[in-house]
């Protein structure tokens, strides 16, 4: 299946992916209204230092520990996409405790949020990828693990 892949050599550390992600998942039509003067809650974040930067979001692991560990049964993997049912999440952060990549974060509403590849929001494909100015984030097929 197609997944998001990141190349740190091409990442400029511009944080545009974070803004595009927050906007794509805001449900709003106007980016300014959605983000201006607000604390943003993106599902992708930039890590790094003054030399190296890279974007981190859910890897949609072959064997996702978050799915197996969620105490509420709120996280599931459907057609290769790890999804969270925000109505079931109680914000216990057990998924944060187990995710080896640090890919989940607490959302504005006090429950967890994670990258779901923008497949169900207005974008229909990952907004971080579309908006990346240097193709440091791509959405493509690189095979599957057995």
């Amino acid at each position: 299946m197609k997944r998001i892949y990141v190349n740190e050599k091409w990442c400029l550390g511009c944080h545009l992916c974070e803004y595009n992600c927050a906007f794509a998942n805001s449900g709003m039509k106007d980016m300014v209204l959605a983000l201006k003067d607000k604390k943003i809650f993106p599902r992708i974040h930039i890590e790094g230092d003054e030399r190296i930067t890279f974007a981190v979001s859910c890897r949609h692991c072959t064997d996702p520990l978050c799915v197996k560990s969620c105490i509420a049964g709120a996280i599931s993997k459907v057609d290769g996409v790890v999804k969270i049912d925000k109505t079931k999440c109680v914000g216990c952060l057990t998924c944060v405790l187990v995710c080896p990549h640090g890919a989940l974060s607490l959302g504005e509403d006090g429950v967890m949020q994670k990258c779901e590849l923008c497949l169900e929001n207005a974008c229909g494909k990952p907004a971080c990828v579309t908006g990346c100015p240097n193709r440091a984030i791509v959405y493509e097929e690189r095979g599957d693990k057995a």
Partner: protein
Amino acid sequence: MKKYVIIGNGTAAVGCVEGIRSVDKKSKITIISEEKHAVYSRPLISYYLEGKTDLHRMKYRGDSFCEDNDCRVLYGTRAVSIDPEKKLVALNDGAKLDYDALCVATGSRPFVPPFEGLETVEKKFSFMKLDDALALEGTLTKVARVLIVGAGLIGLKCAEGIRDRVGEITVCDLADRVLSSILDADCAKIVQERLEANGLHFLLGDTAVRFEKSKAVMKSGKTVEFDVLVLAVGVRANTELVKEAGGNVNRGIVVDEKLQTTLPCVFAAGDCAEGFDASIGANRVLAILPNAYLQGHAAGVNMAGGKACFDNAIPMNSIGFFGYHIMTAGAYDGEMIEEKTGSGVKRFFIGENRLKGYILLGEVERAGIYTSLIRERTPLDTIDFDLMKKVATNMIYSEKERRKTFGDVV
């Protein structure tokens, strides 16, 4: 076609069903459920009382789970014995179920010490099952004084869940600190102060020795007047079925890394099982939800003829009180290194070039990166250890490792 039987209908049972179905889509699965509820998440009962979930949302799987996985659940039914020779499970209604592979996922039950005068207490509850929470809920009033015996995970989550619905909460524990199973003394003190700031009262290093209706007489001689009593002293694994069938049982049902008991074709998973704890290198009951699922899943795969090995279990907990988050993992031996940050405290336990365990208070972002270092036994000289202490980030890894994580299928 095989016949699978699962005793118990909790998290480990769901893991077992999903494990079986990852290998065998067709054979019959029968689940024996003493509780009459569809499978729900037990750790959510405090969130239920707090109003953060409800009876529908706290179901652990969707309504079509049994149908989708083609399994039959016998609600309100109890297994009374296992005959490992004939491969039969006898039920309380006299019926017998034959199996090719059996998973014992019987969980645990509250341990209630023999308190003198306990029978004189009118409103007393354990806090483990949904029915416990529903019964307790019926007694909650804005003026009720609640005494909780046990300042562990169960007792304190109960306290958080009911705080806004009662008048006063006192928590006592024989241990001299809160959360004694997961926190050291210093960290427990910090957490206790937080809890006190949120209205809880504590009597630590002290416990009830005698009850007289609505009065508890403590070991120290103090007395506590209460309207509602919650007993959260501890839990015991439900091991009897396997023990009586001749299987090896310690504190829990002894299982190997395949989740097999010492009885042929009998597996065990969840809070009733005593499996390998990689953080101490020995068997131990790890009564935590992720472990129940992971054990159940591995058991299911093996029951169906697949190959699953679960040998990297470690204790780990994520628990929050009134918005303050605590995470712990692994074992607290070796050298302790403390890192104080703006919003929290991190304690790392280091030995033999490995991260052995950690305690995080207040600052828990991306803690799974730390957990992974313990579980994978990552040599600390292969990562940026100084950076790790300050912040959980993928920058601690080499460029090559990062390329694997972010450039490959993981």
